[in-house]
């Protein structure tokens, strides 16, 4: 291969290197170097992040809910499948409104409903009928993260409902923003870092749908094996 040509290695379009520093070389290297320094990063950007970092990296538009939620009987429900970003929306609202309280309903476990204004209920479809009846008929502003659309029940309870289908908000541009924010979050210094193009994001959405969690796992595997100096990540 001639100098100056590019080669596609492990999902990366990168300049030809004399001795690319492979990730696998690190595993048995007697003196390991700094993590992900070969990509100018501090760690794999798509690994698990602490909840605090998660909220800081949320790329969601929740300002529109501010006014709506300031009045009683208001409900905003974020509807979508797992990995679509329901929890991210709820946590972003929690960060915006200090009086709000977030509660997650785990599967098969009885969960008490706390007091908050607004009350943010994640996995709301797991509430018991009694809890639904009680919560929906209280005047407290609600924000629901749910797999099921509760519009009928909420309207019968006399609530004003705003429904956000979260996957409809996903686009290649937004996915690029989310991914680049993650990469920037773990940047090591001012040099270049890997980037994802709009086309690559489009391909990821075609392949995995709006399941961002699944896309992140795919990217985690790719970033584990990116060669040194990789800039343009391809999938």
């Amino acid at each position, binding site marked *: 291969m001639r100098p100056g040509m590019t080669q596609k290695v492990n999902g990366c379009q990168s300049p030809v290197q004399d001795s690319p520093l492979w990730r696998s070389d690190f595993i048995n290297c007697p003196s*390991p170097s700094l993590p992900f320094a070969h990509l100018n990063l501090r*760690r*794999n950007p798509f690994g*698990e992040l*602490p909840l605090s970092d998660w909220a800081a990296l949320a790329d969601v538009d929740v300002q529109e809910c501010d006014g709506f939620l300031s009045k009683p009987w208001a409900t905003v429900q974020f509807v979508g499948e797992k990995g679509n970003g329901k929890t991210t929306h709820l946590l972003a609202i929690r960060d915006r409104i200090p009086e709000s309280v977030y509660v997650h309903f785990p599967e*098969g476990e009885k969960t008490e409903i706390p007091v908050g204004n607004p009350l943010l209920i994640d996995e709301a479809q797991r509430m018991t009928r009694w809890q639904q009846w009680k919560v929906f008929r209280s005047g407290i502003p609600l924000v629901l993260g749910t797999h099921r659309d509760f519009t009928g029940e909420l309207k019968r309870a006399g609530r004003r409902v705003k429904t956000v289908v979260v996957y409809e908000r996903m686009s290649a541009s937004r996915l690029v923003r989310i991914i680049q924010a993650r990469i920037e979050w773990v940047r090591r210094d001012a040099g270049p870092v890997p980037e994802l193009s709009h086309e690559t994001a489009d391909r990821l959405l075609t392949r995995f749908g709006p399941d961002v969690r699944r896309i992140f*796992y795919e990217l985690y595997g790719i970033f584990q094996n990116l060669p040194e100096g990789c800039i343009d990540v391809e999938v």
Partner: protein
Amino acid sequence: MSKCDITIEFDRSDRIYQGGETVTGQVHVAVNRDLTSNGIKLTRFWKTHGYGNTDRGEQMEEMLDTDSQLTAGETRTYPFSFVADLQPLTYRGHHINIDHYVRVDVDVPWAIDPKLEEEYVLIAGEIPAEITGSRDKIIDFTPENSTEVSLVAKVLGYTALGLLLAMLCVVTIWLLPVVPIVYGIIWFRKKLVVNRLGEVRLSTPHLVVVGGQSWPLDLQFTPRKNTQINGIHVKFHCEESATSGSGTNKKTRNHTLHDVRHTLEPEGSLTGGEEYRRSLPVMFPETEAYSFDRSSNKIKWTVEVRVDIPMFPDWTSSQSLQVLPSEFLQDSATGNPDDRGDRIVPDAGSPVHFPEPQVFEAAAVEETMVEDTASAESAAAAWSGPDTSPEVLDLVERIAAADRFGSERTEIVERWTDDELDVLIDVERVSSTFGATEDAAWQHGQTILGKIAGTDQSIEVMTRTSQQECRLSRGSQWRTRITVSKWDSLYDRLVTLDVSPD
């Protein structure tokens, strides 16, 4: 908006430090506007990163500066120095990475505190205090204060656990009749294996292991029946297990780092009543993946020994091991790695090496290993007796000298299968032939086990004659004519067919 630039500079450019070494460096803090600080704090700690939730070690804090006024354009430098942790060592894996950090926080009142985190690389150095030299028990590296829960908390914890179990019992009471059935199946399966192989005793040298070290297995059993085996295998398995999320969003992913199976004994047949007792020296794979066990991130090593019996439950034994860096198991007197066995460093690319299995001397009281009877030298020594069956002895000598694991032995046997050989045998045991033979004519006959007269060399002869017609018994001498069927590597003996005229 004011800007606070923090840089952490280590005195070593590669930032590589051995456990117990002093890590030194400077912290530089520069601001572009006057800034009041309530203190500048340096924290050092280790944490994991990767697919799983973050596990972290104890945070050690040190104040570099107390309340101070930082002036625009000024750069303050604070030297730091601390003794590096001894473990866990820096690790780069697939789902798990372990790194050591120095973090500097500038406490700015009523504002987000500027902070910076930098990694340094920790390699093996001083031996952690938890390692006492005993290698028979998994060493717990969890700091005492993190497990030292107050008595009240312990009582509350156990009470809650008790209540939970009681509730679980109530909920799952309908499963009660299923429990004896499951246990019955497990018991029956074990019983089947015991009926076939007898009590199998496996002893391993230690649970705390160093990569690249000899790790001999002692396996001993006396089969109750003649048994075909597909082989005896040992499998080393190492995997990273990382858990992300919590509650129902919890997801654990495993990544296999090593999964290597090695055959200790090839396919063959075990003779009922004949003891199988061997020390099987295996070499533990060279690795940098040392055992690690925290709540969301684990690096686990297991070894499984399996006696693979065709169309029958296998005998298996699985054990968790703890793999440590060799530097942690140094002999305190010599400073050399404490091998407790011959440490053989494998060639690059062949992480596991299997020397010839060593055979215990059957009559020895002490478990003293003797030379492999399969080796050419020992085979030659066995022929020191009267030369009563020269052709057979010549054949055995050739086979014994051939490579045990190649095809050479089979090729020798194949060259001799058409020749009829005279042999004189000291009979030790007579039993009905078990299982299928290559020729149906020998299927319902007898199997005669004995030694070639005047030697210690075992031989197995299958006859066409049934029990009623066969008058041979232990102690008798039998002159017969045989053809060679195969070489039994398990017992280092010829398996032959009796072709003497009726």
